[in-house]
């Protein structure tokens, strides 16, 4: 019995060793926002190329940038693009590869008003600056004829944890309001003039669901999945736009004319009529010169797959796919990886 068992163990060890030698393990770390999509990609891609095995740790954009700079992973992932300084700190040329886009919605809890609230960008900024404090402020009422807004204080909720969602949202406020730009600025965590901090999308959503007359911001996918109300915003072109996958992708299409070769661009407040204003890319960070050529080749194959086949999986999971014009550009960038 014992002999049989030990034979079995030996056989298992041998086969697993043989398997391991045929597999290429590609390690990545970074942003949490695209993690559900990435893990779907990895599992689907495993069916096409079983020899590539991906291991992705969603530790946050900050961690992703640190790890790819220290070369402890094969690719990083981030919701914010690197500054010139951060790029210089990396030991080689780091490429930003946009994968999909995300959007941020303004969500609220107004009893009796389950949908249809309209807010101008100036109003959103003033609410988060603490300058509009009541729901029946004239500036909000003027944009919402036919809706009876209550004489109640607006309870502002924001993310307390550093996040790409906050990055995109503060980038947007930064663009629409000079006072915000001067007093607060943009970043993954900022010094909020007013409001309560909730941890994660679930923390913010929880507080808004249970607190009447509150208002906050959430990742689009999270708000849609949980069927939370969202505001229609006035974009830079002056038209009212609902947040959606299409209006998110439209923002990147609008930016194609001045899309830099390294994709380090903020997509908020695009001037196109159909573009939703609070939108951003999420990127993979990859070295142009791959140290391990065999691994580099596998990585390029995967990136190219994700850019074409992978994009089709984005919309059902509520991520906005890259518009065709951007896909063409990124194709060339991926080919430059050696």
């Amino acid at each position, binding site marked *: 019995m014992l002999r049989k068992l030990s034979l079995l163990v030996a056989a298992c060890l041998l086969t697993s060793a043989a398997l391991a030698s045929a597999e290429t393990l590609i390690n990545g770390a970074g942003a949490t926002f695209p993690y559900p999509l990435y893990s779907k990609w990895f599992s689907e891609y495993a069916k096409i190329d079983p020899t590539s095995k991906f291991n992705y740790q969603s*530790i946050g954009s900050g961690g992703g940038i640190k790890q790819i700079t220290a070369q402890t992973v094969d690719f990083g992932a981030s919701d914010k693009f690197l500054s010139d300084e951060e790029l210089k700190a990396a030991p080689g040329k780091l490429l930003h590869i946009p994968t999909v886009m995300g959007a941020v919605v303004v969500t609220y809890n107004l009893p009796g008003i389950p949908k249809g609230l309209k807010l101008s960008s100036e109003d959103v900024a003033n609410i988060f600056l603490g300058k509009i404090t009541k729901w029946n402020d004239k500036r909000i009422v003027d944009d919402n004829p036919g809706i009876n807004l209550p004489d109640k204080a607006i309870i502002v909720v924001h993310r307390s944890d550093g996040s790409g969602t906050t990055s995109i949202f503060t980038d947007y406020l930064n663009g629409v309001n000079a006072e915000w730009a001067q007093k607060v600025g943009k970043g993954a965590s900022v010094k909020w003039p007013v409001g309560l901090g909730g941890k994660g999308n679930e923390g913010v959503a929880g507080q808004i669901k249970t*607190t009447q007359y509150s208002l906050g911001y959430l990742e689009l996918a999270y708000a849609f999945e949980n069927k939370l109300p969202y505001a229609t915003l006035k974009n830079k072109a002056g038209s009212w736009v609902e947040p959606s996958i299409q209006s998110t992708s439209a923002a990147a299409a609008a930016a194609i004319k001045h899309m830099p070769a390294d994709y380090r661009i903020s997509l908020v407040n695009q001037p196109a009529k159909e573009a939703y204003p609070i939108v951003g890319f999420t990127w993979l960070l990859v070295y142009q010169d791959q140290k391990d050529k065999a691994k580099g080749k596998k990585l390029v194959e995967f990136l190219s797959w994700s850019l074409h086949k992978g994009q089709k999986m984005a919309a059902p999971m509520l991520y906005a796919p890259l518009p065709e014009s951007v896909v063409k550009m990124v194709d060339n960038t991926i080919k430059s990886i050696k």
Partner: protein
Amino acid sequence: MLQQSSLTMKNVAIAGEEIESQKSRGSNADRIFRIVTASFAGAVLVILLIMVYEMVMQSVPSITKFHWDFLTKSSWDAVQGEFGALPFLYGSVVSSALAILVATPLSVGTALFITEIAPKSVGNITASLIELLAAIPSVIYGLWGVLVMAPWLQKTVQPWLVDHFGSTPFFSGAPYGVSMMAGVLILAIMIVPIITSISREVLLAVPQSQREAAIALGATKWEMIRMAVLPYGRSGVFGGVILGLGRAIGETMAVTMVIGNTPQISLSLLAPAYTMPSVIANEFAEATSNLHSSALMEVGLLLLIVTLIINVFARLLIWKVTKGAKGGGV
């Protein structure tokens, strides 16, 4: 019977001879055992020292930039690169201290009920239910806190407090639900099982003769508890409270979800606050600037120092209390 005992005697004699013959080998084993255990104990110390060293080194950019301002300023602004940790220090110390104030009487009362008052079966069931509470992960407490407790506080408890005590600084302001008060309550709920189960063990260890003596002198149940049981278990109960405090000050997840995460210092229990572990958990993953992560590291160092001070203080307190206690310590 006789035969059996003589057999045992014989066995003992043989065993004795064996020990005698192995004495040289035995002392060798003793030495090795001593070295191994000492190195294990030493390893813990070394790990602690490495951790402290690493934290200090990582904090250096923040320490050299802000000096004492880090402890006295309340502005926390990652965009401008200004970091003052006073609101977090305040939030941690106040929330933990208040949680202890709420949890201690509750826990000691529960422990007394289990050991002294309830019938044995009821006591056992209560005790195991309370220990079950200790096994619930803190994120569950947090979710319950933000989805159930905070709305309840906002709709029922806090408006009442504002109506009746709103003029005092402790209950002023709008009721948000998530607040220092919510943080204190969730912490209190989380540390009750710890303090209760330690107190229960301590109280169970009080010799029956103590109780009988008190009863024999004509004491009522209350007098027996007050004069015979509690003084005997005092230092042990204190130990439980200190362990609870340790848990409270280090608790991250549950508090983060209900305290409102606003770096401000307000006397009002209805106002949101922020704690040291919360800010580290919230911001560390996305802290991209060097100074930001260094400042967070310094908050970690501060947390370590605060915990150390509390522990030393607690030891002194226990030492003093035990000296004054009439009964035996545990």
